[in-house]
């Protein structure tokens, strides 16, 4: 499982770094899609909570390093997201279109709620204008739109399906 967590962490961290430059090319109205979140949710649903929360934590830390968010902010958001969506493993059947849209819609909203809570607890006032902006609304819709495509592509990548070789990691 260790090597798979390492691979997942590497993929998610690379996506986070790509979101700082190359993926900005496909931004709509300044809103960059959170591809790392979509991939995290996919991996969580496939592999369960343990690998998802650890790789989510690693990717979150990387995101904290390259942004102005306090260290630990994105790490916490992505860890909790990985854990919660990992619980859906074996319980939710992901069809090609509708479920990816719904799951990612919920995941992005959860990100917003968790960010808001952390903002309130730690007094991070700078994130609230972004949270209540049309940019975040665009991100929710954009992530949901991209979800079926990304889930479809990831579903075809065999190593990602064999992360736990059918064993439960709980």
């Amino acid at each position: 499982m260790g090597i798979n967590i390492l691979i997942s962490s590497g993929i998610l961290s690379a996506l986070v770094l790509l979101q700082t430059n190359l993926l900005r090319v496909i931004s709509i109205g300044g809103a960059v899609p959170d591809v790392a979140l979509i991939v995290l949710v996919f991996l969580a649903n496939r592999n369960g909570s343990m690998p998802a929360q650890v790789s989510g934590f690693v990717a979150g830390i990387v995101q904290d390093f390259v942004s102005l968010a306090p260290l630990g902010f994105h790490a916490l958001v992505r860890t909790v997201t990985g854990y919660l969506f990992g619980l859906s493993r074996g319980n939710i059947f992901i069809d090609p279109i509708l479920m990816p849209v719904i799951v990612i819609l919920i995941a992005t909203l959860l990100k917003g709620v968790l960010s808001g809570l952390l903002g309130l607890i730690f007094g991070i006032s700078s994130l609230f204008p972004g949270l209540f902006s049309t940019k975040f609304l665009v991100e929710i819709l954009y992530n949901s739109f991209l979800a079926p495509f990304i889930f479809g592509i990831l579903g075809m990548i065999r190593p990602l399906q064999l992360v736990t070789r059918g064993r439960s990691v709980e």
Partner: protein
Amino acid sequence: MQFRNFTTRHRTVLTLAICVVFSLVSMSFSTKSFVLRPKDVGLSLFSLVQNGMFQVGGFFSRTVTSIKELGDLRRNYAILLSRVRQYEGIENDIVELRNENNRLRSLLGFSGQISYSNIAAQIIGKDPGNLFSSITIDKGSMDGIRKNMPVVAVQDGVQGLVGKIESVGLKSSIILPLYDHLNYVAARLQRTRFEGLVNGGGSENSPIVMRWVEKTAIKDIQTGDLVISSGMNSLYPKGIHIGTVTGITARPSDTSLELDIRPIIDFGRLEYVFVLQTDKPIPAPVPQGVGANAGSNGGPNGG
């Protein structure tokens, strides 16, 4: 034995707890002013990868575009060759005019130009999410960059304020941009000299706002008026262009005006910036001399 059983059974929850506790402790450190900043260490490490990705992406896009550019270059070469000959004659006139301009400036006591050493830097990334706003540049503490240094850029021949350095790694730094909600700049209207405080709107696309402008100024202020830094706080030197007035709001209940400002700098197409070393002012040029030695690492506009 029991402890081992417990940890094995609750491995997932324990890992979650460790990650959450680590995140919370890190946030407690990051949101306070601790001397030890693990964030800066991480920025130094990951910006290397980030820079690498930027360079690789840039290489591919440059290769593709360079093929198309080759044809354009040949065409432009012929046009430019004829223009160069034309400009050679004009150059002599410009040297003469520049000297005259220097003389007139000194006569008028004009000192509005920013005269600080600067460090040219390239933008290698922006915030990966949509909740925070930051710009990452490829210069860090090894290049002489320190926290809170003001950052400017030259676009369409105009020098404008970009923001200030917020976080510094070894070979990269993060800028808190002008449009960030946390960025405050003491400013004044260039024409009417009324003062106010400019604050970011939170995102690249939302306008920045100038608050606390005297209400009596409403008769004098017009849309299109230029807003510059006033130099009232020690962070930003005075005279840097910030933006132009696009809207004036005067609420009956308020004692001051609120002005919508469109930044001079178009952040969407920003590539290079100049970090000002405000502790290293450049002496004013000698009036009669030729000494306008404005270089990329020392001149007022930085080339």
